[in-house]
């Protein structure tokens, strides 16, 4: 299944269709569709038949308006996708204007910010859109001048005929070009990469000049005439229901227009039970909530806690895994014969996403129609959810995509969207629902906690010959909860002759979901730490040990396009070079750690230099990151920013973050209990890219996973203390 989907990477299928029509007010409108990977496919689930589409409008004044179709969550996609079209179209970036798309999968195909998937799926189709348009503009000029197409050139949004010295702007040619037949997308000639003028050159974020002036662009900034403001109180215990509430009291409080119970259903990803308070201002709604008294039917999840899960995990860890994920060679035999065996248990906690813009949504529902303004990463499942829950025809739901104040995977879910729509319908007026930070932190889809019980065996020469891993995770009936799985191909699978990955599952009522680099944000810590442990046990340099383990360049089975060991090796070699690995003399309690990881089609090696103070405090002095995301880094300024941000996000998880469940509810309420990395914890990060022959891939996720083990491996090098539990407990690191 995966391979069939991957055949679409970097190419378009035979069902590609290019449509060109005259634009209103003159000019040319180009749209383009092809079947594309759906989000479900991207997440390794079943393939859905989706289409992809981009619009280019060229107006008579030679301004090129490109519709940016994907949600902008800070990953820079709004600027990046149009760069691909603009370069092949051969216009100057200063001629380009960008429009935000409505959510409409029939026109635009996949509109998802997730899985670092936009670059690999759009790299070729977007360039073809630009190139096809350019070819038609040349055709129009050649017809007009009665010259051969091959004699015409383009540049800066003009077609030029050298021999006669004639030139015309695209704007002047666009109407004629729109009447020409559409070129076959597969035979359309793409630029020689050496001629790129936009791709590979830094283009600052298109919206930044407006953002720094505080212009309203985010979901939370939405204003709809006549709207009221809502808060929604759900049961602190996941899945709990309202038994009764003092609605009479709350409904009479100043400014409150409506207070009602939402029954909700049993699906934790849908509309849950709670009390809605709708008021003239958000502050009055929130103030009224302070007077709200609800008796909850908390349900069975109230019995669950992080401590209880840990006890179950410890007990399961003593038994054989409930299910085998992979079994190569004879692990028990090899461990029995090994010259040295290392045993370790790793653990990481639940995490929240906590994007800085709290969940919010504005909705108007009337006459069987809904109009929604949503900061979502994933609008189409939101449309289905709203249609299903409110009994609307999905064709009668309009979704406006707003700028999103951080996604990190949280807004792949659309719970807040269905809440806003339901409340707006019931209130009979447009409603803006805004969650508090506490709502946000306590009603997330958490990165699942996990436990790993490992044994590794070395032969007399220090070679890794056995690896046994028992993963205790969440799920039931042999099925992992969302983002709680382990891919059986994760390295060192395929490079250790005797290797087993097994899993046991704990049932839970805690909602889980994808957090930036799902799975990998935790698994990289486990795998890359234990490889580091084995290197030290073998008395070998950890970087060299890993290079030898990767071995010769081969394509191993794995996620995405498979795992190319040579690419992992190359980023590691480059990291050795740029960091001065093994050549520098460091002060006491200062050390360097390394990790390499493949996720979301990208390869990253990272080296951290960290100092540990006598009180155990960790200071990250410097980071070197080397990435291989293929042949082109499309927008270098955004790419560097994304790598640095991804690594700091990883450090925040390693140093600061833990969500604790007690009595079926989340203990943490705000950034005091659960903090992203702060400026004082940040470190200088040097970013390098290796240009390789492979098609370009995304950057939202792959820089993050190796950051955590590179840091904890550096702490080991500095102190001799092995961090096996996250977040890092600095009390264990005291001198």
């Amino acid at each position: 299944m995966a391979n069939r989907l991957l055949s679409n990477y970097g190419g378009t299928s035979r069902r590609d269709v290019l449509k060109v029509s005259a634009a209103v007010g003159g000019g040319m409108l180009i749209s383009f569709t092809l079947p594309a990977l759906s989000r479900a496919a991207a997440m390794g689930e079943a393939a859905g038949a989706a289409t992809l589409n981009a619009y280019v409008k060229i107006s008579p004044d030679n301004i090129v308006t490109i519709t940016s179709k994907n949600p902008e969550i800070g990953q820079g996609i709004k600027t990046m996708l149009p760069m691909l079209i603009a370069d092949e179209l051969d216009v100057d970036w200063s001629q380009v204007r960008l429009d935000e798309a409505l959510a409409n999968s029939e026109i635009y195909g996949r509109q998802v910010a997730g899985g670092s998937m936009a670059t690999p799926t759009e790299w070729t189709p977007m360039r073809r859109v630009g190139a096809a348009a350019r070819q038609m503009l040349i055709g129009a000029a050649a017809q007009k001048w009665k010259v051969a197409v091959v004699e015409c050139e383009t540049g800066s949004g003009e077609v030029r005929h050298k021999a006669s010295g004639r030139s015309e702007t695209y704007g002047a040619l666009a109407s004629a070009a729109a009447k020409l037949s559409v070129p076959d997308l597969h035979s359309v000639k793409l630029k020689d990469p050496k001629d790129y003028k936009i791709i590979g050159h830094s283009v600052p974020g298109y919206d930044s000049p407006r953002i720094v002036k505080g212009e309203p662009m985010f979901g939370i900034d939405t204003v709809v005439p006549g709207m009221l403001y809502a808060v929604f109180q759900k049961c602190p215990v996941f899945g709990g229901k309202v038994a009764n509430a003092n609605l009479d009291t709350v409904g009479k409080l100043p400014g409150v227009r409506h207070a009602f119970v939402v029954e909700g259903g049993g699906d934790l990803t849908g509309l849950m039970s709670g009390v809605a308070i709708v008021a003239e201002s958000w502050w009055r709604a929130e103030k009224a909530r302070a007077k709200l008294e609800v008796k909850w039917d908390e349900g069975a999840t109230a019995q669950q806690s992080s401590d209880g899960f840990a006890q179950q995990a410890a007990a399961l860890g003593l038994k054989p895994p409930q299910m085998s994920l992979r079994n190569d060679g004879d692990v028990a035999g090899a461990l029995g014969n090994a010259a040295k065996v290392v045993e370790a248990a790793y653990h990481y906690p639940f995490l929240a996403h906590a994007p800085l813009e709290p969940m919010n949504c504005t909705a108007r529902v009337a006459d069987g129609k809904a109009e929604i303004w949503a900061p979502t990463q994933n609008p189409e499942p939101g449309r289905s959810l709203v249609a299903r829950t409110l009994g609307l025809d999905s064709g009668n739901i309009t979704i406006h995509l707003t700028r999103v104040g951080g996604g990190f995977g949280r807004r792949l879910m659309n719970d807040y969207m269905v809440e806003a729509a339901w409340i707006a319908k019931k209130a009979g007026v447009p409603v803006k629902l805004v969650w508090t930070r506490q709502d946000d932190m306590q009603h997330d889809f958490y990165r699942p906690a996990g436990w790993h019980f490992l044994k590794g065996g070395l032969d007399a020469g220090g070679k890794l010959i056995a690896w046994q891993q028992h993963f205790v995770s969440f799920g039931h009936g042999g099925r992992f909860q969302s983002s709680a799985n382990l891919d059986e191909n994760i390295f060192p699978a395929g490079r250790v002759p005797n290797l087993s990955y097994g899993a046991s599952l704990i049932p839970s009522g805690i909602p889980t979901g994808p957090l930036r680099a799902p799975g990998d944000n935790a698994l990289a810590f486990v795998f890359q730490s234990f490889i580091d442990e084995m290197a030290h046990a073998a008395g070998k340099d950890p970087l060299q040990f890993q290079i030898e383990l990767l071995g010769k360049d081969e394509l191993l089975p794995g996620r995405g396009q498979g795992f190319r060991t040579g690419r992992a090796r190359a980023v590691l070699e480059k990291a050795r070079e740029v960091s001065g690995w093994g050549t520098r003399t460091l002060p006491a309690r200062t050390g360097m750690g390394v990790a390499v990881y493949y996720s979301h089609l990208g390869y990253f090696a990272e080296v951290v230099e960290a100092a540990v103070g006598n009180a155990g405090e960790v200071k990250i002095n410097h980071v070197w990151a080397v990435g291989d995301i293929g042949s082109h880094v499309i927008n270098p300024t955004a790419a560097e920013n994304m790598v640095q941000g991804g690594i700091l996000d990883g450090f925040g998880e390693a140093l600061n973050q833990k969500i604790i469940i007690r009595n079926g509810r989340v203990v943490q309420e705000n950034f005091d209990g659960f903090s992203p990395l702060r400026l004082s914890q940040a470190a200088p990060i040097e970013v390098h890219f290796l240009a390789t022959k492979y098609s370009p891939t995304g950057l939202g996720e792959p820089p993050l996973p190796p950051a955590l083990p590179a840091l904890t491996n550096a702490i080991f090098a500095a102190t001799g203390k092995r961090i096996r539990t996250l977040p890092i407990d600095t009390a264990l690191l005291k001198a």
Partner: protein
Amino acid sequence: MNYTLRINGRTHTVDVDADTPLLWVLRDEVDLKGTKFGCGIGICGACVVHLDGQPVRSCLTAVSAVGGKAVTTIEGIGATPIGARLQQAWVEVDVVQCGYCQAGQIMSAAALLAKNKSPSDDDIIGAMDGNLCRCGTYARITQAIKQAAKTDLGAATSKKGA
């Protein structure tokens, strides 16, 4: 209750409860959406505005406590030379990822540069550590502040020269 506020040089009269945070007055009564809601307890910095030039957390500042003090928000800071330089540096350095925290970052940075024309890294941490950037654009925030500060020193030097 009616409150008369001076915001970005203009006078606004609003009818709100005395305990309404300035944040919600700005966002929902005066329709200045640049100041952002992030935590509601004064620890993320997304809501920083200036009162008589001093940075405050507008989510914790009741409207009744503002009095006659001049309120400056992200929409108004560009009218000051420091604010304009910071906004320009923010764009040139390409600081922004999601952008949600950046109004608060710029307001904190403007208060810093008003006191300290040439801040060190430690000065910047001291002034800016209360502003969370969930995307982790800290290196560029620091770089943009230094660039804006340099532009200032450059302008001062050339003025002296002239």
